[in-house]
C-alpha cells in the first residue's frame, strides 16, 4: 500500500526536523516540509498531500490564512488540515476548528504519539469521504 503523504508546515526548523523523524521513521509516512505559507502552497500544487500539519503562528501568512488559501484551490480544498499550536486553550481550539481544521495538535507533542494521531485522522477522513 502506498504511504500517505504529509505536508508539514512550520517556520521552526527544529519542529520540522522532529516532526519529519516522527512521521517518516516511526509512522512510515512520506513527508514534505515547508517553512512557511508560500513554500507550502507551492509544495501542495506540485503534489497534493493527503494531510497538512500546519503551524498557527508563522511570520507573513499565518496558519489560518494559509488554510484559507488551501481551501480556495480546488486541488487542496478537501485536504484535511491539522493545526499545530503552542498556545492552545479550549477557546483557541474551538476557534481553529471553526476555521475548518479537522484537529488541533498542541506543541510540545509526543513524537511517538504523533503518527498514531495522524493515522487516526486520515482514517476518519477516508471514511467521511467515502460516505
Amino acid at each position: 500500500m502506498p504511504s500517505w503523504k504529509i505536508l508539514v508546515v512550520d517556520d521552526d526548523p527544529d519542529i520540522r526536523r522532529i516532526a519529519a523523524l516522527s512521521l517518516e521513521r516511526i509512522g512510515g509516512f512520506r513527508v514534505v516540509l515547508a517553512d512557511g505559507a508560500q513554500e507550502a502552497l507551492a509544495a501542495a500544487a506540485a503534489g497534493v498531500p493527503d494531510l497538512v500539519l500546519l503551524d498557527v503562528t508563522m511570520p507573513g501568512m499565518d496558519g489560518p490564512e494559509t488554510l484559507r488559501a488551501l481551501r480556495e484551490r480546488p486541488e487542496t480544498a478537501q485536504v484535511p488540515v491539522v493545526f499545530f499550536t503552542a498556545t492552545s486553550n479550549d477557546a483557541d481550539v474551538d476557534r481553529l476548528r471553526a476555521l475548518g481544521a479537522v484537529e488541533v495538535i498542541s506543541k510540545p507533542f509526543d513524537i511517538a504519539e504523533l503518527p498514531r494521531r495522524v493515522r487516526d485522522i486520515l482514517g476518519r477522513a477516508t471514511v467521511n469521504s467515502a460516505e
Partner: protein
Amino acid sequence: MTPAPDPSIDALLAAARAQFAAELPAKAAKVEALVALGAWDEARRAAHRLRGSAGTYGFVELGASAGAVEDLLLESAGVPDGDGRARLEEQLRRLADLAGQAQGEAR
C-alpha cells in the same frame, strides 16, 4: 497497519536531541538579546518557538520557562516595565540557566 519499529530511530532521536540541546544556550541568548534591544514582537516569537520545540525534544522545564517569557511579553502588551520587567529578567535568567544545564547534560 502500523509499521514495524525501526531500531535506528532511537539513535536518530538521540542525535536530534543532542543537536537541539547544543543550540539551546544560543536560542536563550537570542531571546534575551531581542528583549535588550526592545524588539518585543521578535522576542515573543522566539520565546514562542522555544516553548513549542523544547518540550517536544524532551526539555519540558525549559519549554515551560520559554512559555513564561512569552506570556510575560503578551501580558505587558509588548512593552514590559516595572514589576513586569523584573519578572521578565528573572525568567530570562532561568531560561539561560536551564539552557546551559540542557547543553551540559547532552554532552
